[in-house]
């Protein structure tokens, strides 16, 4: 009996190692963690990838109209049409490829992806999965996307639309009131003045005057700020830059920072709390905050805006310039007022909304 006890004891001692030893021998999970060695950041990634996959799957460069079965990420049926006219309330069940344009009536539903070669006009209250268009896209009121939309031209979105995970285009992306979004990319991304947007959604010109793209002149007496802590303006508690004051150099605030009306900062701003600004402030560099960022009316930011909280841009805020690409990235959410202009990328993991 004691021998049995000893054997059982030995067995129970080595048993816990059994799983590990088996895995060492069988090597079921011995591959390195996957890193995509081809990945480069592209805000239009979804659409570019979809176009590439669909184009490769189609039988020829100019495919004939009709239904066509192919494998995209999984086996799909692609409906190829010259011009797609989707009636009111109609449901499109297949992947749709329109060789010219797409026009949909009210309340249409698209269960699969759409690729339009020229122009797309999406009617009111439509439900779409994803839409890629090689021209302009116009989205009418109350339409909703679950994944993404992308255009190689302009995108104009009417009020009360939900733009899914991503809305991107190579030219202007203009949003009307009460639109919701997560990622936007345009050159620029704009929000219209509500009244005019409702009356003339086709209007291409924005109703505000953009400030000149030239940076404001630096104070003559100030020295060039070097990147040393001792030479940075560092606040240990809640701090403020008074209205119409000009400051040369980076500002780092350990708590909340207030910028008064008309304040001009020649440099970057970082705050470990929140940033709140008055009207018509200017920051020539980047803005970073561990808390929320609230940019007052007609703020002018030449750099990038990044927040671990929310970003609120009141009317007339301009971020970046036509000379390049800048971003607004906020972890918890973004709120845009009217007349916003962002040259580049807007992204939040929370919810983006236009007032």
């Amino acid at each position: 009996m004691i021998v049995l006890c000893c054997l059982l004891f030995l067995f129970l001692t080595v048993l816990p190692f059994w799983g590990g030893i088996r895995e060492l021998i069988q090597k079921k999970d011995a591959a390195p963690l996957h890193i995509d060695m081809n990945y480069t950041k592209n805000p239009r990634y979804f659409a570019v990838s979809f176009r590439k996959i669909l184009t490769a799957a189609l039988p020829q460069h100019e495919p004939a109209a009709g239904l066509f079965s192919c494998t995209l990420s999984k086996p799909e049926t692609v409906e190829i049409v010259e011009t797609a006219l989707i009636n009111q309330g109609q449901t499109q069940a297949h992947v749709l490829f329109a060789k010219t344009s797409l026009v949909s009536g009210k309340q249409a539903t698209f269960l699969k992806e759409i690729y339009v070669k020229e122009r797309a006009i999406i009617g009111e209250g439509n439900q779409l999965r994803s839409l890629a268009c090689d021209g302009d896209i116009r989205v009418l009121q109350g339409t909703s996307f679950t994944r993404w939309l992308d255009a190689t031209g302009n995108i104009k979105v009417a009020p009360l639309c939900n733009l899914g995970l991503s809305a991107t285009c190579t030219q202007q992306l203009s949003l009307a009131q009460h639109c919701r979004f997560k990622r936007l990319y345009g050159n620029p991304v704009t929000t219209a003045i509500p009244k005019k947007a409702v009356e003339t959604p086709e209007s291409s010109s924005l109703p505000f005057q953009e400030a000149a793209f030239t940076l404001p002149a630096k104070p003559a007496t100030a020295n060039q700020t070097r990147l040393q802590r001792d030479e940075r303006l560092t606040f240990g508690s809640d701090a403020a830059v008074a209205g119409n004051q000009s400051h040369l150099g980076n500002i780092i605030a350990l708590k909340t920072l207030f910028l008064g009306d008309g304040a001009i900062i020649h440099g970057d701003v970082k705050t470990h709390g929140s940033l709140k600004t008055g009207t018509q402030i200017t920051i020539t560099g980047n803005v970073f905050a561990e808390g929320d960022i609230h940019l007052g009316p007609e703020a002018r930011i030449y750099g990038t805006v990044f927040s671990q909280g929310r970003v609120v841009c009141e009317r007339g805020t301009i971020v970046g310039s036509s000379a390049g690409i800048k971003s607004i990235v906020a972890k918890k959410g973004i709120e845009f007022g009217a007349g916003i202009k962002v040259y580049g990328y807007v992204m939040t993991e929370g919810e983006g909304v236009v007032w």
Partner: protein
Amino acid sequence: MLQPVLKAPAHEERGKELIMYHRSYRKLPGSFRTILLQFLLCFILFAAPFFCFYPQVTKLLCQLSKTLLDSFFFADTIKITAIPYFKWVGDLYYLDLPGKLPTLAFSLGNILFSLMLLVFFGFTNYGKPLMISGAMITAIHLVASLFFLFAPGGFPYSAANYSELYIKQQIGIWFFMPLLLGMSILPLPAPWPTKFFAIAAAVLYSLVFGTLRYIVFLYIISQVSMLYMAILYFALGPLIDFVYGVGIYSLYLSWLLKKSKGNIALWRWY
């Protein structure tokens, strides 16, 4: 108490079902409060009973061990002894039995063997981590052998002392094992009954293993030699308890990972 893995994703999370994000900022839904509640339940179900009923458990353990070891001893040389432990709970029981002191030659033989092993461990480059672990354990045995060679009368423990020590240590293991497993398993995204099942399995393993080890240890120090007390204590003591604790954790986690493969609803981002 429902676990997130069983939940339908909230409306605002539906988009995440459709496009898989990178692993970098994955996290789990859930709250510290839920985990704390589960931990309390774990304490009440598994840890507290050991503390409240250790007199009964240790008595049962001793009775079982005595039954198995009785045949190796003369009558009345092995008996169950009770000593006060926590006065509000009751006495602690252990087996009182005679140990076997090593002879001079036996100690010398063990010294030589330990030295040879140490030389082997020191000069071999194969299986380095095993060699280092082995060398540490052998060094303890060498010290024990030297102790019995030079001061056999000075060894501070009798077999009964050792038996008492073991039981006290085992109560600690039984008490803390479910708590340690609870700390590591309860935060995992799985239905709570499966988590408690895994903890219960560890407790059961601990009960069986602890009992077997007690019988084997007592057999060795009473029938082979007390020289092995130290090595048994340090090499096959609580260290091994954590090995099977971690083993059960890794088995459970492996099962959970297999089950939840491709379940995007499991995750939240940022």
